[in-house]
């Protein structure tokens, strides 16, 4: 009202004051959110950035053989061998490079051509026996050391491995590689594994999501409509496993499903089976345990949505003469779709990145991408490959996350609405 009756300069002054106080308020809000924002930025986004960087970083050859690296980058990489001075530079650097750097470079080169590691290490051992000679003679000397130095493929591989950044790992994670001419081609058939692993991961996540939806939808519906002690028991049945440590649940399932486990001995006692069933450490076990782990992720958003659907909607459809099935399909089901979307996407996103449970209850052939990331990081210490696979998995998750944000909204996904 005051604004309405104020005129001219007075009104402008009032607007400015209002604007200033709004700005101050907003500044306070920004200051409140800033600590967590910065923390997530530094302790979370920066690490993700480092994974991205490590997926392309390629320092080994530059560190061990810097001059060879720059000489090779000047070579056009055509058919045949690099010019003689490259051989001379390489021979000198191979003799001088520190052992550790040489070993790292050898490991890196071995990714390009299997056997390169031994070529480097045996040559490094014998290089001191070569008499210093004219640059033009060094090529012959190296080839005499090991005839593979006379094969262009090894020099092409070395040239590919010299830039500071390489697409090698990310290509390898997609079963691709660069050939000697620098074109991107499919990896040899016997080396194509990662696309299969990725597809397997997506397939497992899809199957787990589907089973959870088929079981979770009626369960959530039952929870939303049941009353009295039954409703409480159902709620406890969903929430208690959920709060229980993942490893405690996994150990329970191992005990239950193993060969001498409870399920097998119960079935044997009932005379239903004569030999124990293989229920764990295979695909069956993986699905049973994963569904148990994931079911609450599906049930809780569904339950929230269904709880919000007024029961008289179905009654109204029935009073208008619709068969319950028709009422369900045309009235109830469409209203549950936001919950279905949130539950399914959440279940899928979480399953796709799972690693601990599958590593304990599934066979070697059922392992998902997460397992191989951990394998490359902790067992073979191949940071490039671990990071590249991490990027592929992250890309899948980000796509799903954006999809979920678009379809059901971030707030719904977080369970805030």
């Amino acid at each position, binding site marked *: 009202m005051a604004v309405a009756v104020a005129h001219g300069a007075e009104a402008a002054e009032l607007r400015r004051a209002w604007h200033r106080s709004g700005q101050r308020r907003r500044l306070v809000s920004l200051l409140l959110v800033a600590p967590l924002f910065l923390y997530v930025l530094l302790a979370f986004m920066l690490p993700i950035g480092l994974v991205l960087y490590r997926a392309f970083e390629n320092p080994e050859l530059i560190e061990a053989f810097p001059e060879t690296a720059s000489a090779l980058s000047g070579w056009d990489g055509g058919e045949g061998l690099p010019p003689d001075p490259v051989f001379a530079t390489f021979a000198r650097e191979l003799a001088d490079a520190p052992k550790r750097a040489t070993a790292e470079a050898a490991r890196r080169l071995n990714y390009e051509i299997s056997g390169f590691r031994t070529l480097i290490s045996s040559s490094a051992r014998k290089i001191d026996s070569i008499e210093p000679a004219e640059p033009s003679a060094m090529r012959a000397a190296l080839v005499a050391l090991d005839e593979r130095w006379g094969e262009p493929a090894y020099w092409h591989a070395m040239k590919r491995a010299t830039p500071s950044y390489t697409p090698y790992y990310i290509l390898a994670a997609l079963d691709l590689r660069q050939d000697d001419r620098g074109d991107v081609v499919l990896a040899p058939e016997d080396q194509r594994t990662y696309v299969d692993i990725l597809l397997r991961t997506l397939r497992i996540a899809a199957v787990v999501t589907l089973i959870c939806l088929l079981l979770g939808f009626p369960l959530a519906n039952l929870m939303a409509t049941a009353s009295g002690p039954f409703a409480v028991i159902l709620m406890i049945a969903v929430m208690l496993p959920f709060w229980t440590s993942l490893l405690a649940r996994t150990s329970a399932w191992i005990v239950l499903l193993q060969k001498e486990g409870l399920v097998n001995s119960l079935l044997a006692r009932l005379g239903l089976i004569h030999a124990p069933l293989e229920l764990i450490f295979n695909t069956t076990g993986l699905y049973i345990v994963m569904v148990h782990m994931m079911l609450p992720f599906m049930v809780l958003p569904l339950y929230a949505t269904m709880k919000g659907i007024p029961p008289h909607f179905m009654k109204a459809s029935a009073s208008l003469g619709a068969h319950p099935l028709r009422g369900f399909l045309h009235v109830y089901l469409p209203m549950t779709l936001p919950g279905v979307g949130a539950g399914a996407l959440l279940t899928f*996103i979480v399953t796709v990145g799972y690693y601990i449970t599958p590593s304990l209850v599934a066979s070697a052939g059922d392992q998902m991408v997460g397992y191989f990331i951990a394998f490359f*990081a902790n067992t073979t210490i191949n940071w490039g490959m671990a990071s590249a696979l991490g990027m592929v998995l992250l890309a899948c998750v980000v796509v799903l996350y954006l999809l979920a944000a678009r379809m059901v909204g971030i707030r719904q996904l977080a369970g805030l609405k």
Partner: protein
Amino acid sequence: MQYRHQIALARTLRHLFGAAMVLFLLAPLAAVVPLSFSAGSFLSYPLPGLSLRWYETVFLDGPWLATLKNSLIVGTVATIAATVLGTLAAYAFARRDLPMPTAVLGFLIAPMIVPPVISGLGMYFLLAWLGLTSTMAGVIVAHTVLAAPFVLITVTATLQGFDMSLLRAAASLGASPTKAFLTIVVPVITPGIVAGALFAFMTSFDEVVVTLFLAGPAQRTLPLKMFEGLRDNIEPSILAMATFLMVIAAMTLIVSVVLMKKNTRNLGGRLGRAMAETGE
């Protein structure tokens, strides 16, 4: 008449299905409890006798206790840090004048969406760079960032529907901003903060994957020890620990239900816990 039969049949089937799901969800947990009291070392029934020997192994023995202590230290410090960071941010969201609130929220809850195996790898790179791998500080830094989103979500859920103009009303009645905050916001927000802290603690207490990347032998946490035990050879002492963890889970569940009972929109918190599982 036939219609009534159909309805009765449908209802029976629904209840049978419900009972089957309760069995599927709870039976595995219930089945290990008696085994943890076994006098023998086999993981099958019938039990050779009852004893507390596996509980003695777990609670009187050095290695298990050391990992429990590590988990409690990491969990406590990370929970305090995450609760402070998460509550401040949640309050900012409740003020409803943040620019691009949805995008900011999406950014802040990313740590519970990204698979922990990727976060763990990245945090290892960062901590290696800072020389903080195999330190308690490093593990705590990581657990804090994983736990904070759960506090943010739980407290935000508590503040949903909270009318910020109440603060202005208090100011118009002469209350100082501090007094208004203490008498109006704090009573509303406290159950949410405690529940959020509980989620944060459980997230940290159950975290394996990221810890696997960051912890050295001196920082081994309880889940890490359980993971190694399950990988090598499962024995009843693991089941004793599992039973202990189930008891803790039941207690936290009860506390969180009591805390969130007043708030009908408590699903945010529950889902927060749901997403805590992304921390595996």
